[in-house]
């Protein structure tokens, strides 16, 4: 089964082709704030180097964050449009869970907590605790949107032993995470800080069906409410656009 997974929750955009049992190819690149301009060319190059046509795709998975709103919207809009145009099934998949699945190999036992931490900007991080299960990871807390200091407090209180921490949120707030007692972040250069869309890929035997209704449910996990303070109000729109 040929699936495509895209993750745009962070500044590093990730694309994977294949399924969980058989990865065909993957790519990742620094998109910064240019997800819109960079995503489709990267997807085309990835398909081309495998001699595949977009019409051969059978399933789409969109990383739904949480993460940067604009990046997520580009990724999710692209995935939804692919699903609609090709009439192939689509699913959403948590970027925090994919991050945790990638970092789970460093957990020592099934008791240890792993904090997946994505930069939420404005001095905050999105995070969730995970624990190792037989095959992958399962969530062990709610999804948080907190200041890094608050997160460190919350996760250490919730855990008995040291908490492994991974993600671009850890890198963005190095000073907080690398000095904190009770937190064991992966080394800064460790690749497992990145969300790898391989971990969004469905199993080989996944058999979903395309439906327009299911497509509509695939949306970013924003976590944070829209900012409606006066500075972002746009009064000029009014009646007469």
């Amino acid at each position: 089964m040929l699936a495509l997974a895209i993750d745009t929750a962070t500044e590093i955009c990730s694309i994977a082709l294949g399924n969980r049992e058989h990865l065909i190819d993957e790519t990742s690149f620094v998109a910064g704030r240019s997800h819109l301009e960079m995503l489709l060319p990267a997807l085309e190059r990835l398909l081309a180097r495998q001699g595949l046509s977009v019409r051969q795709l059978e399933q789409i998975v969109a990383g739904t964050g949480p993460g940067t709103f604009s990046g997520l919207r580009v990724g999710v809009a692209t995935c939804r449009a692919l699903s609609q145009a090709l009439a192939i099934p689509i699913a959403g998949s948590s970027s925090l869970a994919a991050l945790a699945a990638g970092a789970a190999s460093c957990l020592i036992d099934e008791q240890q907590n792993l904090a997946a931490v994505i930069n939420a900007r404005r001095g905050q991080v999105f995070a969730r605790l995970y624990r190792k299960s037989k095959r992958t990871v399962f969530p062990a807390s709610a999804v948080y949107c907190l200041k890094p200091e608050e997160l460190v407090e919350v996760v250490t209180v919730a855990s008995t032993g040291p908490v492994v921490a991974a993600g671009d949120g850890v890198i963005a707030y190095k000073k907080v995470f690398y000095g904190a007692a009770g937190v064991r972040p992966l080394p800064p250069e460790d690749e497992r800080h990145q969300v790898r869309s391989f971990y969004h890929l469905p199993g080989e035997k996944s058999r979903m069906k395309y439906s327009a209704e299911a497509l509509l449910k695939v949306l970013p996990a924003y976590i944070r409410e829209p900012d409606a303070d006066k500075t972002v109000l746009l009064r000029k729109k009014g009646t007469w656009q």
Partner: protein
Amino acid sequence: MILAIETSCDDTCAAVLDGDRLLASVVSSQTLFHARYGGVVPEVASRHHLELINTVMDEALADAGVDLGRIGRVAVTTRPGLIGALLVGVATAKTVAFATGARLVAVSHLEGHVAANYLPPGAAEPPFLCLIASGGHTSLVYVEKDRSFRTVSQTLDDAAGEALDKGARLLGLDYPGGAALDALAASGDPGFASFPVGLDRPGNFNFSFSGVKTALYYYLRDAAPALARERRADIAASYQSAVISALVKKTVAAAESLSCGLVCLAGGVSANSLLRRRLRQQSEARGIDLRIPPPGLCTDNAAMIASAARFLPDLPYPERLSLGAQATGLPV
């Protein structure tokens, strides 16, 4: 056949155009969601676009009775507008084109408003003078035979639609007040009070609407509350008449000075009933041929984007895959 997508502000729009035949135009307005904030919140608009875009596209295709396989070109608004809103439309449009093999056309929202005039029943042929008036934009442009634009004049401060909406707000009407002002003014006496509009010199085709809004503010501040209440319809009619008269007078004068026998209207303010009526009277009196698109093609829609795309080149490959959006200023 062209599938067009427009998401520059808070309306999610898709349309299907076959030649100059409009097969479908779907507009999903978010006005209700934004009313409680008293304006458009960009983040809220962007979220709604993403929720709605695929359904709106499906609806347009179903209305047109065609499937995506028959779409040869996909057109999309890339500028100007709210960046977060535009990028939902651009990402969707270019991905659909990528998946189906259709060609891709980038359209400016302003070109789109003018191109509403290329559609039947008006189907204006350039050259013509076009008054573009909306909530974020007011200008007179000369559309050349090759459909390129030359700006004749523009507003130096507020847009006409903005002036109408702000007037509505001062009169205590709910957001967005322009349409309510139009309705209220219908039963009022436009000669009741006089509100001077700026740049009222012959030969000056530029617009200025900040003064008239201030005049209304002082009028209401200084008027006896009982009078302001009882004569609200008259005040509304007088204010609206002042704004619309300036638009009509300058448009007709510019057409005469350019010896241009064809005038078109574009932008949301073209839906204003007084503007349509006055401009019709004035142009008839001077032997000017006037075309006004139906109201549904004046406010934001994707049919106008498809119409503009008919006369624009396809984006080259592979550059079209990296198509971006340009936020350059406010929605128009």
